[in-house]
């Protein structure tokens, strides 16, 4: 009689734990919002997952990630961010530039947001200060936006006799004004003139290159912008076709056959965004995590492209280059 009572009790206890085990909430959810499609993000996602892994989280093992991609249509970002916020994830990761970060910030003031961007997050109004971000945001910024002027300097160093350069800007970028201001100041210091061309649509790229080749511009300098960075392949192909010496922010450009790149190391910034995401999941407060600046700025040059373009890279550029693609 007694034993039966105990067995019944055990059975009851087991039965009561069963629904608990079936709870899907055991695995935290990350909402990931990117401005492009997954393909150009492959290397960045890899870095992000590495960082996440370093802080003890592995996708589909102890964390779930739900992705939202704007497919290059940056005006879709706010609605995607709002949709993601409605899923009530543990943390939202806004990667690939300021637009995604700003869209996420507008979507929620409650869910923690970890951003990955290239501009100055204070100047863009994403956070109040780097050391004490405050609010529900923190993240990583590469120095890409700040170094646009260095790109002009390198192009000038490559072509010291040229007096005019073309600059390509994305008018929809929140950092476009500050970058152009910097570039004009640098142009004044270097004693060169700038032709500023604007586009926010890849269908205009070809016409853009065509017009640069018409100009007497020595070379083309791209402002830092994720929209351009994610279209490095196409830009490299166009630069080769129109024989335009060009420099962009992303290493993908010289790797794809472009001439040069100078910008922040995105693998570092995405990895650190992953690390911060893991730390937030582990219970740390975003206010305690200062915004990180990725100090590593890398320069890639493609000697083959230089040969095709008929330009000679001076020793100073070769010395400065972190990677020289032969």
């Amino acid at each position, binding site marked *: 009689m007694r034993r039966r009572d105990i067995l019944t009790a055990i059975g009851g206890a087991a039965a009561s734990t069963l629904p608990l085990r079936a709870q899907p909430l055991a695995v935290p959810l990350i909402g990931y919002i990117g401005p492009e499609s997954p393909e150009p993000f492959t290397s960045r996602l890899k870095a992000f997952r590495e960082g996440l892994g370093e802080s003890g989280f592995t996708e589909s093992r102890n964390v779930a990630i739900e992705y939202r991609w704007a497919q290059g249509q940056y005006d879709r970002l706010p609605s995607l961010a709002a949709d993601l916020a409605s899923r009530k994830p543990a943390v939202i990761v806004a990667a690939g530039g300021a637009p995604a970060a700003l869209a996420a910030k507008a979507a929620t003031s409650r869910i923690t947001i970890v951003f990955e961007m290239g501009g100055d997050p204070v100047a863009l109004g994403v956070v109040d200060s*780097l*050391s*004490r971000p405050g609010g529900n945001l923190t993240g990583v910024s590469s120095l890409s936006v700040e170094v646009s002027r260095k790109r002009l300097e390198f192009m000038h160093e490559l072509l010291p006799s040229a007096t005019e350069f073309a600059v390509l800007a994305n008018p929809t970028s929140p950092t476009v004004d500050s970058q152009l201001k910097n570039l004009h100041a640098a142009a004044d210091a270097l004693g060169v003139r700038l032709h500023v061309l604007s586009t926010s649509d890849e269908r205009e790229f070809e016409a853009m290159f065509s017009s640069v080749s018409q100009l007497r511009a020595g070379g083309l300098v791209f402002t830092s912008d994720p929209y351009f960075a994610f279209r490095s392949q196409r830009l490299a192909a166009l630069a080769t076709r129109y024989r335009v010496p060009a420099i962009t922010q992303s290493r993908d450009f010289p790797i794809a056959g472009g001439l040069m790149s100078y910008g922040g190391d995105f693998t570092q910034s995405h990895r650190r965004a992953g690390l911060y995401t893991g730390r937030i999941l582990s219970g740390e407060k975003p206010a305690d995590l*200062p915004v990180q600046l990725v100090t590593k700025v890398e320069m890639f040059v493609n000697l083959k492209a230089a040969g095709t373009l008929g330009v000679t890279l001076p*020793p100073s550029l070769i*010395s400065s280059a972190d990677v020289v693609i032969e």
Partner: protein
Amino acid sequence: MTRRRLRFSGLFQKYFLVLFLAVVIPLATNGVSEAWFGYRDQRTTLDQLLGVEARSAAAKIQGFLDGITNQLGSLVQLPWTEEPDEQRRIEALRLLRQLPAIVSLTLVDGAGRERLYVSRIGLNRTESRANRSENEAVAGARSSRLWYGEVRYYRDSEPYLTIAIAGNRPSVGVVLAEVNLKLIWDVISAIKVGETGHAFVLDAPGRLVAHPDISLVLRGADEATLAPFRAIREVIRRAGEDVATSWDGQGEAVAAAASPVAGPDWTVVVEQPLSEAYGPIYAALWRTAGLLLAGAALAGLLAYVLASRMTEPIRRLEEGTERIGAGQFDHRIHIATGDELQRLADSFNTMAAELAISQERQERIAKLKRFLAPQVAELVDRKGDGVLEGRRTEVVAVFCDLRGFTAFSARATPDEVMSVLSEYYEALGRIITKYAATLTSFSGDGMMVLVNAPVPVEDPAVHAVDLAMEMQQCVQELVVGWRARGHRIGFGVGLAIGLATVGPIGYESRFDYTAIGTVVNLAARLCASAADREILADVAIAEAVNGKRAMIPLGMRSIKGYDEELPVYGIPFEERRHTA
């Protein structure tokens, strides 16, 4: 019963406690002292270990700075000319690439003019010739060759340091490098102290220069963040030789040691969680505690067994004595401990056996006394039944009876008769007992008493004479009373000495001790012929007491049953005078 139980448990508890403590106290003392010395040793070891870790960490931080300054030295080898130095520009750009921590380089010539500025972020400048001689870094490097600035926080977050190096001649100029100290992270995060310990770097005012958690460094000059680090450094400074223990930012107890980095006047602190640092101590403590517990349990068990073994015989003794005390003399206490307790048990057993014998004797005496004079009973008891066995010996037979009793008993009421007889026998019984004589038989008012058998007495004739005299004295006193009540009763005694066969006669459950022989007949006859107030004895008595007691020869008398006349003696006695 309750008291016995209490006394029992008390003794058990005492033994148990003493035995238990005898084992546990040395065990505990040993365990505790071992733990304490282990703890002291471990502290010393830990201090040395952490000291080594701290020096090693400081050497690594120094190595990080040396890696920068050594490379920078190559930029201040050759003297400046008035011409732009393209070679040195390329060298500077190469350095900028090779040393990611350097954000910018400024080269100043011997006259203090800026000749070259290269930066990762800002625009490069060549031959600006701006006067930098007032710059504190330039001045500092000129006076001490190698100059370290103070740590600054770029935008209140990223720590930066200016390093300036002058060449060995003034004309080679000075190189200034802006170093982003965040890059020490690679060095500091690689330093592991034990499994979970780490290192961090503070500058002289106590700002955080490097920490494995970069987010702490990036908080800049945040007092709340820096306070625990400064506290640890202060604790280490005060601890001196001993190992320093404090709490880190997360409130975890840590052991820490520090070592200086000479150039920039920094302090490298290594810390290890106490839980890990004292891991071996804790393990040893747990082990000791486990052994102590096991030892205590074993000691408890042993003490229990021993105390039981010690108290069990005592309990048996107690129980045994109680049973013996209760008269159970056949009870034996079985203790085979081979010690004093066994001896005690044996003597208890012996005592019980003796008590049994003694009791048996007492019972037998009590039984014998009902038939025999107490002296006979004692004799029988002492010498065994043998004394009662039939034999031939010299005895004095004393006969006595009341005169006129038959007539009295016919007249008087039964109560009166019984009262007279009761007084009579009471008085005589006392005298018989006193004289160790044996009452062999009585019937009605007459009785026969034997002297010298079975209890031998010294000088039986005199003894018997005294007995007879006292009988007369006593009975005559009673007679006075009886006569006063109108009963005409007298008392006569006859005695004779001679050989007779004595022994028990009767059947299985009823035996009388008696004497058979002429002396008995003679005594009976003498009694029969004795008048009131008269004691008649034969010639043998008279001869035996001659000179010892007064005898009055009464001449020859014919005695019934005897053919010739026999000489008869009267024994005078003194009547007691009563005032009544």
